[in-house]
């Protein structure tokens, strides 16, 4: 019974995707979508090696808005750096961040968040999973970046996935 939460969430998302792609709520589409999504979920369950157990969906919603705000803010910051004086354009460097997050789905989500935010790109995880390397465009205060990623993203992701 432990597998049901993520299984149903996956089904619900696929179902919503189907209806959106078809852009209709006709009974035929509802039925077809329902049959398809349940069949797909059941038949692909075996080839998905790990099950995600996301909970605290409200935290996920909060995380979404946090990321949205950060993406908008860093878009403006990166645009400023590109158009700004040459001095600031040569500040890019790699840096390391200690990680406590271990869930593979949480890590995948963190990779997407970090890479989708302009100004930071995920550059690798150490083999033991304890150290994350990122590349930062305007690296001035390493402490500030560690704090941002650990408190704004990692804490929420651990709440959702662990």
């Amino acid at each position, binding site marked *: 019974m432990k597998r049901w939460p993520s299984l149903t969430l996956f089904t619900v998302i696929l179902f919503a*995707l189907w209806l*959106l*792609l078809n*852009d209709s709520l006709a009974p035929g589409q509802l039925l077809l979508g329902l049959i398809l999504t349940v069949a797909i979920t059941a038949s692909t369950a075996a080839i998905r090696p790990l099950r995600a157990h996301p909970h605290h969906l409200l935290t996920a919603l909060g995380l979404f808005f946090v990321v949205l705000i950060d*993406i*908008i803010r860093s*878009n403006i910051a*990166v*645009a400023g750096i*590109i*158009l700004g004086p040459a001095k600031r*354009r*040569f500040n*890019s460097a*790699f840096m390391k961040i200690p990680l406590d997050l271990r869930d593979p789905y949480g890590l995948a989500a963190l*990779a*997407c968040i970090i*890479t*989708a*935010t*302009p*100004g*930071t*790109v*995920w*550059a*690798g995880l150490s083999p033991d999973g304890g150290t994350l390397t990122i*590349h930062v*465009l305007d690296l001035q205060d390493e402490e500030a970046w560690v704090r941002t990623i650990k408190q704004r993203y990692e804490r929420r992701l651990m709440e959702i996935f662990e």
Partner: protein
Amino acid sequence: MTDGVIPFWADLLGSLLLISGSLLTLIGSLGLLRLPNLFARMHGITLGNTLGLGCVLLASILVASIHAERFVFQEVLITLFMISTSPVTTILLMRSGIYRRRMDADRKTAGHQDSPNPG
């Protein structure tokens, strides 16, 4: 259906969104020219992928919704696919960049030890 006349305010807002989206993408592409190396240049491209694309999609949602006289939000799907696919290619590019830099460094040190013209 009033044959899809778009009111002035929506026209204006849609155009503003389109222009700011295009400007952001342009600035991001300009980063290719102005930033010093591969790793720094990757950050510029993200501008077009995120807020640049977001502005264009918002404009599309606005105009399409008014045109069809109902709320059209299929554009959300584009965002979803973009958010879940573009980081993968970016990370792959980053990894191969790191790998190539390491290979270059290895070759350089090996070249100094063995022969003046390696490869």
